[in-house]
């Protein structure tokens, strides 16, 4: 009956000659290669984002210089343009918008001449106003 203690404890696993002389260097080389590979794979992961960022910078630069080349550098709102905006009050557009009210305003202001030029009676004017300009009834009174 054999016990484990009866067996000599020895290491029977052998290695190629000089294996341990080169193992440490092989490990160090593998670490260097793996770290390099990891760094380059990091670049591969972020490559699309790096390209996207570069494209955006190029696009922004292009827009900035392109606008200077093709667009009139004068400001859209400048001295003369401000005057134009002020004159818009007299433009045809506004005149048309307020035409009806202005006709009525002129009519009210030119009553003397109109009276003189026509035979319209007060009753007829009142009747006309009450039909078409109800909101002015009070003013007229």
């Amino acid at each position: 009956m054999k016990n484990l203690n009866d067996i000599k404890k020895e290491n029977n696993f052998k290695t190629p000659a000089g294996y341990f002389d080169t193992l440490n260097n092989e490990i160090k080389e593998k670490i260097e290669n793996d770290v390099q590979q990891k760094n380059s794979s990091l670049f591969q992961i972020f490559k699309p984002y790096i390209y996207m960022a570069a494209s955006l910078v190029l696009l922004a630069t292009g827009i900035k210089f392109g606008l200077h080349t093709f667009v009139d550098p004068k400001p859209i709102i400048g001295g003369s343009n401000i005057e134009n905006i002020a004159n818009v009050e007299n433009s045809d557009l506004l005149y048309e918008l307020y035409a009806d009210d202005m006709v009525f305003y002129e009519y009210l202001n030119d009553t003397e001449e109109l009276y003189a030029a026509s035979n319209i009676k007060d009753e007829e004017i009142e009747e006309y106003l009450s039909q078409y300009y109800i909101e002015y009834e009070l003013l007229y009174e």
Partner: protein
Amino acid sequence: MRKNDDKVIIEKLRNLETRNEAFNDIVNKYSQQLYYHIRRMVIDHEDANDLVQDSFVKAYTNLDKFRFDASIYTWLYRIATNTCLNFLDRQKRMSTFSALSYEDTLADKIEAHSYFDGDELQKTLQKAILKLPTKQRLVFNMKYYDDLKYSEISEILKTSEGGLKASYHHAVKKIEKYINED
């Protein structure tokens, strides 16, 4: 004792400027021990060579996770053991549909391998060890060949010392039974 020996290395590891130098010291100091720890588990020299290199690469890339109050030796052993167990799992899965079990393939390697020079009794001992369940084999090798304390094995395998003692005791009994029946 080992912990005291590693104090200088740990101090160098703390400093980023001397970290690579410290890791070279670790490789020089522990590569041989780790190689044999792995070799006894995978038997084949080429596999052991790949796994010991992989273990050191993993250790280097995980240096930031190393707790400076821990022992470098047990930390490296843990990494090597996990690398080894993953490899053995893969090999076992791959041999599921083959005629020979993975353990039988390893036993054949002991018989035929030019890098095993033991006598018949030593071959029988190795075959008996190969018959043990993987984790029991691991505990047996660490205790019997590497002379690790139960407290160190416990730290490496994250298993209670009581469990390890029982495991080693059962392993010895199985091995003795195998040798006497052979």
